[in-house]
């Protein structure tokens, strides 16, 4: 399988952090809170579609709510292969960072 892109890793980690409450709005909010940057909606939804096509996340529809004009939420969960993929990508980062002293940064 092709390695995950940076944004794909961010989205997977955000879904894992949110647990059962991961859908479009909360994923955007979680990414914004953790990375200090607001993801473009188009980028987020196309990434979610791509991750689902790769089998790294799966989605199911919730119940319609009046707040959303009677529209259901599309909840997302990370599949076991998604967890493996993000763990593999993170291990690569950890190996690259190991023993590295970054000037002006307390902990690498």
């Amino acid at each position: 399988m092709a390695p995950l892109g940076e944004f794909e890793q961010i989205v997977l980690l955000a879904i894992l952090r949110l647990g059962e409450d991961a859908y479009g709005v909360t994923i955007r909010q979680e990414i914004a809170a953790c990375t200090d940057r607001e993801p473009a909606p188009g980028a987020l939804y196309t990434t979610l579609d791509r991750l689902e096509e790769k089998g790294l996340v799966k989605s199911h529809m919730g119940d319609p709510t009046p707040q959303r004009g009677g529209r259901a939420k599309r909840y997302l969960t990370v599949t076991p292969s998604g967890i493996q993929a993000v763990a593999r990508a993170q291990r690569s980062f950890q190996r690259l960072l190991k023993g590295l002293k970054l000037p002006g940064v307390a902990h690498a």
Partner: protein
Amino acid sequence: MPNAATVAEWILSLVTTQERASATVGDCLEGTRGTVSFWWFILRTAISTCARDTWDSRWRLCRLSVWALVPRALLVAILLHAPMMLINYLGGAAYFTLTPAREYWLEAAVITGIVPFIMGRIVARRSDGREIAAALTFAILPGTIGLLIDTALALFSHQTLKLNFPVYYDAIFILAGALSWRARHPRPA
């Protein structure tokens, strides 16, 4: 009259499944405030999704666009010449004179209207659920290839390049044809 959310859902359903379009509009209603930010959200999502569709299937869509040039040329030939041949064959030429003005409007209607509309439907039908991406590729690619060939020929023959920019009137009809196909054949979930 449909409200903004219904229109937005229809726009998104052109590039994704109905279920996902509905959920995305719901997210938009929940996560945005105001008309401008609502439509900005919807348009960015629709354009990104369409661009991803196009990029993910770029070679298939290019092959489809090049293939579609053959039936397009055949359709133009048939629709332009067949009626006149039939009229002449039946001896009706004495009653129906093809003046230059009539010829102009006949060609305009066939070449930039009827044939592109039919081709939009044909391309959409063969696009495997990526109707809008296929229609846009078919509308843009042949004109762009023609422009590149003109440029190359002018450079090769050391002549002054007279850029004859392609005019994409027919793109509207190609897109209309694809939309008419899509309206009856929604993308499966």
